[in-house]
């Protein structure tokens, strides 16, 4: 079981490395953001797996947090890419 989990963790980490390649490579910012988003997902997996490994439920809080942040981050990035600005003062104008 433990070996399986370790293997899983290594695989996830490798995935992240692959995604990192996408971040480095680009070519457009959007690609990087998508990759970052996916890294966030991989991070969630990693945290989940790690908490099984260290056998502690205290890290599970992180999962939801990561999900939230990854979502907010993605939205912010997309708004930035779209308008160059995140916050609009008054959208009705």
């Amino acid at each position, binding site marked *: 079981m433990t070996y399986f989990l370790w293997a899983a963790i290594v695989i996830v980490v490798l995935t992240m490395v692959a995604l990192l390649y996408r971040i480095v490579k680009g070519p457009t910012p959007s690609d990087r953001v998508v990759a970052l988003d996916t890294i966030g997902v991989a991070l969630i997996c990693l945290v989940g797996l790690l908490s099984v490994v260290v056998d502690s439920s205290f890290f599970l809080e992180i999962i939801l*947090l990561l999900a939230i942040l990854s*979502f*907010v981050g993605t*939205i912010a990035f997309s708004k930035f890419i779209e308008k160059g600005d995140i*916050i*609009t*003062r008054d959208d*009705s104008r």
Partner: protein
Amino acid sequence: MKINNVILQFTAKIVFFMIFFYAVHIFFAGHYTPGGGFVGGLVTASAIVLLIIAFDLKTVQSILPINYIYLIASGLLLALGTAGIAMFTGKPFFTHFFDYFNLPILGKTSLHTAALFDLGVYLVVVGVTMTIIQTIGEDE
């Protein structure tokens, strides 16, 4: 260019409440499990940020008409006040008081002045984060 963001705005509304309750949960859990006023405050702030991103500043301000500077000050006052209670009882500054109670629904729980202090932290963090984001956002 104005684009309608129905999907985003609808999701944001739902998600806002999810995040907010999660923040409250994290805040209260802080004394026994990971979390606390600080993270709670930041998560709350990110929920509000989500709203601001999805809608716009003006709309959000009309929904949540809060002067964040006052929020900061109240948070600080609360924190200082909690810490200062001890001074009036002849204990060193910052001495907290707690006891375990058997409350009807929650069971055995501790009531702790540290939680009040943490609430101060929470308010300050929300206030500061929102002040920053709002002032930058308002700036032309």
